[in-house]
């Protein structure tokens, strides 16, 4: 087919008049059954390079993409053009996915998007045996490289698959962010005859700024003063989940419409927020880097980072989501030299100790176990377990195998011993990347050119779109009024304890503070572990404030407190004071019926919840039946203790149980 003929079909089907040269170059090769790696910036129109050939092919084109939001958007768009497209992902019901798979088997679907995790689902594998596959696409192909910014082990399997596919079956890999090193790595992994097509990565509609600050307070203040002056709506990226909460509470306090987003939210909430973002429901969404990968909103007008990313490639990827409509977009990065501690800790602490690797290897060797059993057996944190697991799979020391419904881990006979060299290399490479990111902050040259150079795009443009090349520098001016407002906010903001579950009468409670982000943690530590005496009165004032903020004038029938693991009256004495102030009666009858270990000994929620299971008893059960209960403790970590007591009290007929604690830890092991 020649270009003229193709563009006629393009006009008919996609309502577009012509291809860009690089699009046509790609499509021509695809139509000949060749393999192509296409590196083009966001907004270039990479998806047309597979969507167009897909409609010409007889069979089904399968696209592996990690970006569920993007899949949904593209499916919607294709369907509106009358092209049958569907996506299979973990956010849909199994019935829905089954139906899609069976439609694909019957040849009813031209374009099928699959989230790679799905590849492990046997139903899907089974279906592929009967599907007429005409082309395979690996979207966000940088995910296959450990040298990229977003390596995903599930993509390793896709590469294996690509290498098994027969000659003549076209394969297209696409990415917007690949350095030369990543490009070479992808090409090596995809093997064989691969054509690489690389476009220029320059985004001239960006206005790039770096704002130097000396504290987090200055970031909050600048945003408070200026956020509403920015055009349209946008995204604020923070370094941690807790920060998404703090920033969104700050904007709530300032009455700026905003919402927080992170990967820990349930799918419905995530979809609701993505939709809200599309509809400009908020001035901004505050998110970890979980959001936005592939959100197809053309008019994101600003992207602000409150935390320096790990590397220029992370940064380019994240800001790449702005201004797809080619209109002016503001790209702002806050930088406090202290901020590099967070990425440094990711790099340094990104890998667990070698002894933990050895522990897991031994456990896998001795018995065929699943994730949960291994976590219990090794007392690893779930997050650590997953890092170690992925590394051991990568090094071909263990493998994951499905038995009916359950997944287990096998030791690979004759495997090489653990190699730490790969970790060292990766760490050094990441350290260099971080240094590069700091160079971006400190450069007095064109920031866009810096990014393009870093990404291996050597095109020679004139770049005049940053605060080093003509735009006015942005600075923070914190006046007394704003310092006061921030202080008021700090004393008015209390973390919520989300413990509501079906099957118990627990309701969400509140903590007076986060442990570790204020002086509260220090005070607790002194009293608990350094014989510092009773909890100081400022904690009482703070917790009462938290109580009023969260529960208002609500009254409870009874106060109970969590009995201590070791002897000690701290929580008891504290609860008595709360009871005296709130004038709710207190009962001392909640006890432990067996010795438990301190929860902090356990690294993961499975063991924590085993530790306290059936460990509590109330001497006078009649006391709680039909009552509303305020349950007091000092520190809330995984919530296993509160949930266990909540379950127990619910069974005894308690009508409502609400936790109230002094501090909530940051980053408890989430299960």
């Amino acid at each position: 087919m020649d270009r003229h003929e193709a563009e006629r079909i393009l006009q008919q089907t996609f309502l577009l008049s012509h291809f860009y040269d690089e699009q046509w170059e790609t499509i021509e090769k695809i139509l000949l059954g060749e393999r192509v790696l296409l590196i083009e910036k966001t907004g270039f129109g990479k998806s047309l390079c597979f969507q167009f050939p897909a409609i010409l092919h007889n069979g089904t084109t399968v696209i592996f993409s990690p970006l569920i939001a993007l899949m949904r958007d593209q499916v919607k768009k294709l369907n509106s053009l009358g092209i049958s497209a569907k996506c299979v992902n973990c956010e849909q019901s199994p019935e829905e996915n089954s139906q899609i798979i069976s439609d694909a088997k019957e040849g009813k679907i031209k374009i099928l998007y699959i989230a790679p995790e799905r590849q492990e689902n046997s139903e899907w594998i089974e279906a592929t045996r009967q599907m007429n596959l005409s082309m395979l696409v690996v979207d966000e192909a940088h995910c296959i490289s450990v040298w990229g910014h977003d390596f995903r082990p599930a993509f390793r399997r896709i590469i294996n698959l690509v290498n098994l596919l027969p000659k003549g079956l076209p394969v297209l890999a696409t990415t917007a962010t690949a350095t030369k090193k990543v490009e070479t790595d992808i090409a090596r992994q995809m093997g064989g005859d691969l054509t690489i097509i690389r476009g220029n990565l320059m985004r001239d509609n960006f206005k790039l700024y770096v704002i130097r600050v000396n504290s987090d307070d200055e970031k909050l203040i600048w945003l408070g003063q200026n956020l509403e002056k920015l055009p349209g709506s946008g995204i604020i990226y923070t370094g941690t989940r807790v920060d998404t909460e703090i920033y969104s509470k700050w904007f709530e306090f300032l009455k700026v419409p905003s919402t927080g987003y992170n990967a820990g939210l349930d799918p419905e909430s995530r979809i609701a927020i993505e939709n809200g973002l599309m509809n400009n429901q908020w001035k901004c969404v505050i998110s970890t880097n979980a959001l936005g990968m592939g959100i197809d909103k053309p008019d994101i007008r600003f992207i602000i980072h409150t935390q320096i990313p790990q590397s220029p490639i992370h940064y380019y990827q994240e800001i790449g989501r702005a201004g797809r409509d080619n209109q002016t977009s503001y790209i702002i990065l806050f930088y406090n030299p202290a901020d590099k501690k967070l990425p440094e800790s990711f790099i340094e602490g990104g890998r667990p100790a070698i002894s933990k690797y050895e522990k897991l290897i031994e456990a896998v060797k001795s018995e065929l176990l699943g994730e949960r059993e291994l976590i219990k057996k090794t007392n690893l944190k779930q997050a650590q377990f997953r890092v170690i697991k992925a590394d051991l799979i990568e090094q071909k020391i263990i493998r994951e195998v499905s038995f009916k419904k359950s997944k287990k881990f096998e030791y690979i006979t004759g495997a090489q011993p653990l190699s730490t060299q790969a970790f060292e290399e990766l760490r050094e490479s990441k350290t260099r990347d971080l240094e590069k990111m700091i160079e971006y902050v400190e450069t007095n040259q064109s920031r866009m050119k810096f990014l393009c150079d870093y990404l291996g795009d050597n095109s020679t443009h004139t770049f005049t779109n940053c605060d080093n090349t003509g735009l006015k520098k942005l600075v923070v001016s914190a006046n007394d009024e704003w310092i006061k407002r921030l202080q008021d906010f700090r004393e008015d903001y209390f973390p919520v304890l989300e413990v509501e579950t079906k099957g118990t009468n627990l309701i969400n409670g509140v903590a007076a503070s986060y442990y570790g982000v204020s002086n509260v943690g220090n005070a607790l530590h002194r009293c608990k572990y350094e014989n510092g005496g009773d909890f100081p009165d400022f904690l009482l004032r703070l917790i009462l404030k938290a109580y009023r903020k969260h529960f208002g004038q609500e009254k409870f029938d009874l106060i109970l407190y969590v009995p201590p693991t070791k002897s000690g009256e701290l929580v008891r004495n504290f609860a008595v004071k709360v009871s005296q102030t709130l004038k709710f009666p207190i009962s001392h009858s909640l006890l432990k019926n067996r010795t438990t270990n301190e929860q902090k000994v356990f690294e993961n929620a499975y063991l924590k919840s085993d530790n306290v299971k059936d460990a509590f008893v109330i001497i006078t059960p009649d006391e709680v039946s039909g009552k509303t209960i305020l349950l007091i403790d000092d520190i809330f970590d995984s919530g296993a203790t509160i949930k266990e007591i909540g379950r127990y009290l619910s069974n005894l007929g308690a009508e409502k149980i609400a936790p109230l604690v002094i501090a909530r830890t940051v980053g408890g092991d989430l299960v």
Partner: protein
Amino acid sequence: MNKEAAYWIALAQLPRWGHLKLNKLIINFYHENKLSIEDFFHLPENDWKNQYALEYKDIEDLKKAKSELANFAFLAETMLNEGYELIPITTPEYSKTLKENLKAAHAPALLYVKGNKQIMHEESIAIVGSRNAAAKSLEFTDNIAQLASKQYKVIVSGFAKGVDKQALDSAINYKGQSIIVLPQGIMTFGSGFQKYYKQIVAGDVLVLSTFFPKAPWSAELAMARNPIIYGLASEIYVAESSDKGGTWSGVVDGLRKNRLIYVRKPDSNENNANNLLIQKGAIAVDFNGNPLTLYLPPSTQINQLNLREPAVDYENKILELLKTGAYTSKDIIKKLQLNWSEKELRNYLKGKKEVETINKKPLQYTIVDATKRQKTLFD
């Protein structure tokens, strides 16, 4: 070879091609024309026809297989990810013993394995026998397995009840090495992989199948597996055989093809066909597997056996007759002048895998369609 996995699965799956035809084709493109399987699959149809003298139906089969390559690639990816390995007949990893014993006529083109595949290259023995063998036979099996394990010989068995299972359990017990030859596709052996996890990790067990990876157990596959067990072993020990079934026909075949087969010398009070096999040329062995060259099975004992003596002659006569058409049991008795009751004959025919029952009234019997008939080991 991994790169070619989908092609090999496709080739091994060609419907009703038979080992000989498949192996001839492989010899032709791989050895004579020095083509990879990938190159062969991508030859123009004309080359298939002219150079390889393939017929219309064969080419249609190949085209269909080719169209399914992408599907097999997905299957292969799953398999490799879960630690299964595919061993084509063209690779040095393929068991030499198997190739030499089965030759082009019967050697499967592709082996699916999981575990320590090096085991396939060690010296090996098979211990075979019936599913409901007597205690005596199981003790013999255990003892032979122990002796073999001490001599670092690998024990090949078929994962059936009775002797097979004993052979495996004993090999594991004596820290020997084993090959389990599956009567099913290798991906359907989940519970077995869980059960023998430690042995597989330790490198002491290899699980092997020659069937489509997802094929469930079937009687047909169980029969088709027997030649593989015999083929993988340099020596064959028979613990106990009745006068029909897999063990019996395997040994009779083997003897015809001059393979060394050791049969446990039965005690005088045993009711099995071991003596019969010894009479037919198998070598009697004692409890420790030592040949008893001077042993002659007592003819009286054979006469005492509850056998339809001489069964073999009857068998051959009956099979010859059935090759000529379909007969009722009454016809057969009349034509061959057997002194059996019809019921006896019907029961006898029921157990014969070579015989097909035609559902008419009265029932008729004929020989199984030659294409469907299980290949005997040493034809």
